[in-house]
């Protein structure tokens, strides 16, 4: 309970800091404030993808269905955060470049991430039997992860990027004002904390579901029940 309250207060501070404390960026003006929310959300979407992939590898090595559960939960959260990142990015794009969507490299990569998550869940819902579902979706998740570096390299070759420089850019310098940096890193921490909290909550519920199912029936059918509840 202590951590949730702390997280709540921290998030409040971040929101207040993003609008009141941090100065607007040169050139972009007040629009730059969306970066305090957009970048952390996008970061969490990628982090969730990574956690899901690591759990998939662990599942294939140890054959523990709990890893599969974690991979699925992380993917669900990743999908939610990827949608948020897409929407916030799209709003920013409309305000600065004049159109909601123009296949900027970063828009392309987040869109492909959305497609991968979508395909992952489509695959999961199409397989009967949780062990088969676990290992096939784990394999897909790894194969999809392997292609991401190619996309990162390939996409900028086709469309020029209008996206503001990444925070840690190729020149190795930070373009942010000290106060902006404080808010930015606080926000990064807040959103990562939010992810960890929801993740653990989800996991606890799913595990409890397993236990409840296991008392009446065999452990395996209980697992599938928990999975359907997960959706």
């Amino acid at each position, binding site marked *: 309970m202590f951590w949730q309250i702390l997280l709540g207060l921290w998030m409040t501070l971040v929101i207040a800091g993003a609008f009141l404390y941090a100065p607007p960026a040169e050139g972009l003006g007040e629009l730059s404030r969306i970066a305090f929310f957009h970048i952390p959300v996008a970061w969490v979407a990628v982090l969730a993808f990574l956690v899901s992939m690591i759990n998939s590898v662990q599942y294939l090595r140890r054959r523990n269905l709990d890893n599969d559960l974690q991979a699925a939960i992380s993917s669900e959260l990743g999908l939610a955060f990827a949608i948020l990142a897409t929407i916030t990015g799209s709003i920013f794009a409309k305000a600065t470049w004049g159109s909601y969507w123009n296949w900027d490299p970063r828009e392309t990569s987040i869109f492909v991430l959305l497609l991968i998550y979508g395909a992952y869940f489509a695959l999961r819902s199409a*397989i009967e039997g949780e062990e088969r579902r676990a290992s*096939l979706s784990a394999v897909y998740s790894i194969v999809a992860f392997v*292609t991401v570096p*190619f996309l990162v390299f*390939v996409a900028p070759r086709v469309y020029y990027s209008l996206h503001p420089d990444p925070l840690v850019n190729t020149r190795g310098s930070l373009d942010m004002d000290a106060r902006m940096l404080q808010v930015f890193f606080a926000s990064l921490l807040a959103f990562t904390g939010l992810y960890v909290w929801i993740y653990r909550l989800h996991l606890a519920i799913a595990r409890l579901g397993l236990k409840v199912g296991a008392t009446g029936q065999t452990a395996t059918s209980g697992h599938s029940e928990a999975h359907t509840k997960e959706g």
Partner: protein
Amino acid sequence: MATRSYGWVSEVSAVWRKDLRAEFRTKYAINALIMFAVTTLTVVSFSIGPYAIAREVMAALLWIILFFSAMSGLSRAFIHEEETRTVNALRLSARPSVVLVGKLAFNISLLIMLEAVVVPLFLILMNLHIGNYSLFLLVLVLGTMGLAGATTIIAAIIAKASSKGALFAVLSFPILLPLLVMAINGTKLAINGAPVAEGLPEVRMLISYTVVMVTASLMLFEFVWNE
């Protein structure tokens, strides 16, 4: 070691020949592939016939046709085994890596047969002149390898799932996107008559993509196959 690796190669070619023979008995996959490609090509050619479109767009059209045709037929290699219930026999008689590479070779053969029909037809119907044929062929061949290399393991995955047909394209597209972008870029250069040296970055990326995908497939295939 030499005899073992020879044994592996001959086993792979046995799987490949088995699939080719089974395919030529029914001609199911190749008919589906070619008819799908010709239909798509006709639709494309018919609908944009009256308009003059930029030559660069042709490269994208060609690869879209090849992508969707591949989606209509390449999953066949594994679905066929499930449908005829020969999976267990194959699992007993061949190692996973042999099965994967054999099926991969079969899928590459299918795609080459498809391209032998569709690409010339495309060039004729779209009245397209290629500036640099050697770069064009190089990109086409490497793109084919990558297409087959990435989708063979997806085909193995969806063979175990329900609603196979729709799922194959859904699962393949995000994975194939980098390949398609590279292949379209390379083809564009070839159409414009760029020298091979200018297309080298694309060629290099296509090769490394294929190598990475085939390696990952080899490492992961066992988990799919023994499921």
